């Protein structure tokens, strides 16, 4: 409790954000379930689904911000960790179909029957157990991030070169997962899911629970991120972002700090992907597409990087805009996204949250607790 109070004492906005996320994650599904469709308070099912999806995107954005906003690693491949988490969940959901597939094969998923495979590949073993899949959801993205980060950070690859490596990683996975003989359903990916933990994936109750789970995951993700960036570790991290050589000459090993935060971030992204897949009902190689990773970076830039509330706000706002625009004027969406990418860095360098901040800054300055600024610094 004391830790929590210390953590959030100077971050009311974050507490507010977590509260809103949890209230939306509980309230909207409950309104959907408990009110009749005729009621004015009724929330349609598709809204619950959309909110659940947005919450997963928001968690992905928080993961991106943790490495980009706080450590200066511009990742253009975080969609890969999201997709890997999604695939791990998708494999579990595939195994739950059992003999109810089109081919009715009790042992193999449909796509394997179609490919004339006789037995389950070794890497599918264990995915009929939820706990195993749940571990893989964080383990696989975490290990990939560990491997990639270990080589990249030790060799002191930074800046645009690192961005290109992360982009190449997701591009390579995108190509690989298209191949049928990879054993993950190739081009079609995995879909037609039936049940999760024994509950029908189509039922209103399950949808409500998944939306709530996404809200909970986002809230926990924010708490994890806040404790990381609020610690002395987080201060070193910002130091690495702003003056890496200074950190090194102070006797720290920046590569270890980067590696740790990169792995934590990849795991958060994996969880986001795992919650996303049952809500949209499909996972295919398209999730690895480099454009997805770039979009996640745009959410963070628009919301405000280097803050924890910013990415949540950015992810929700941009995706709400996307949902609305792709419905109303489908051909305009990509232009709108491109325009955002150009104009936000120009006019809103600190994102939407920065807008709010600069308004506060113009208000009368609060008395500094430690020491008043005696004279102008410059």
């Amino acid at each position, binding site marked *: 409790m004391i830790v929590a109070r210390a953590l959030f004492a100077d971050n009311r906005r974050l507490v507010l954000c977590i509260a809103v996320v949890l209230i939306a994650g509980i309230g909207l599904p409950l309104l959907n379930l408990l009110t009749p469709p005729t009621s004015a308070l009724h929330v349609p099912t598709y809204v619950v689904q959309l909110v659940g999806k947005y919450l997963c995107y928001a968690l992905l954005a928080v993961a991106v911000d943790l490495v980009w906003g706080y450590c200066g690693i511009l990742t253009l491949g975080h969609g890969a960790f999201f997709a890997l988490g999604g695939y791990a969940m998708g494999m579990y959901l595939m195994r739950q179909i059992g003999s109810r597939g089109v081919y009715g094969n009790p042992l193999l998923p449909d796509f394997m029957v179609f490919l004339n495979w006789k037995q389950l590949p070794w890497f599918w073993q264990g995915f009929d157990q939820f706990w195993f899949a749940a571990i893989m959801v964080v383990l696989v993205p975490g290990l990939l991030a560990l491997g990639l980060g270990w080589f990249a950070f030790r060799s002191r690859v930074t800046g645009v070169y690192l961005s290109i490596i992360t982009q190449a990683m997701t591009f390579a996975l995108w190509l690989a997962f298209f191949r049928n003989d990879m054993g993950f359903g190739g081009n079609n990916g995995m879909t037609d899911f039936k049940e999760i933990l024994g509950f029908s994936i189509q039922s209103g109750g399950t949808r409500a629970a998944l939306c709530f789970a996404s809200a909970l995951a986002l809230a926990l993700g924010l708490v994890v991120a806040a404790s990381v960036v609020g610690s*002395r570790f987080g*201060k070193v991290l*910002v130091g690495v972002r702003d003056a890496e050589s*200074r950190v090194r000459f102070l*006797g720290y090993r920046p590569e270890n700090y980067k590696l740790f935060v990169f792995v934590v971030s990849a795991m958060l992204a994996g969880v986001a992907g795992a919650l996303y897949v049952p809500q949209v009902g499909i996972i295919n190689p398209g999730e690895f597409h480099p454009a997805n990773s770039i979009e996640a970076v745009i959410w963070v830039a628009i919301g405000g990087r280097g803050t924890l509330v910013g990415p949540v706000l950015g992810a929700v706002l941009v995706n709400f805009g996307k949902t609305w625009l792709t419905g109303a004027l489908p051909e305009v969406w990509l232009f709108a996204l491109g325009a955002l990418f150009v104009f936000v860095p120009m006019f809103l360098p600190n994102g939407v949250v920065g807008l709010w901040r600069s308004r506060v800054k113009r208000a009368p300055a609060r008395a500094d607790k*430690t*020491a008043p600024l005696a004279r102008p610094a*410059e």
Partner: protein
Amino acid sequence: MRETDKLLYVDGISVSFDGFRALNSLSLMIDDGEMRAIIGPNGAGKTTMMDVITGKTRPDSGEVVFDGRHDLRALDETDIARLGIGRKFQRPTVFENHTVEDNLLLALKGKRRVFDTLFARRATSETTRLKDLLELIGLGTQRGILAGRLSHGQKQWLEIGMLLAQDPKLLLVDEPVAGMTDAETETTAKLLREINKTRSVIVVEHDMNFVRELGVTVTVLHEGSVLAEGSLDQVSANPRVVEVYLGR
């Protein structure tokens, strides 16, 4: 590796970049508790020498021994910093988005591994040490403001304070008074002399008035090796030094 009672023993180091000889068999010895000023025209190899001592650049040949037993050629920047060599860069390099106090806190000697800092709580001893350091560098009233809002001179002092926080045996200070006013320069000289009471210091500087104010042994570098060594008056009287400085 050579046995030596010098704090820093640099012998015959050479460094080439793409055929350009930045250091040419340079030798330098610093005693425990000594302050040494290094001067030399642009391109004389002053910064490269610091890079070699702090592990940023590996010499092609020669020996670098610290404290009589550490071969610095085998270590990287982090290891060397942990051994007790602090380095101030030419351009003041502080964490602009952290408060003055947090800058010093991150520099304080202590455990520096990921899991140490993740769970670190501020100790009372750290608070005391921070207070002393803030007082020494004269930034006590600015402790709560972001380092990015400090003036150029204050940033230089903060960086020197950060070096001190590391509790090093040897400080390498690259052009501490560049861009400073006369009053600030004087304060900096005082600060360095104060530091020198307990630690060894190597100062690279262009400003001759400042070097005179320090009143220490001067080493003149030229084209990657030592041209002259002695008091400022001695080296200024050296005809070769005059030639190098005034053009040939």
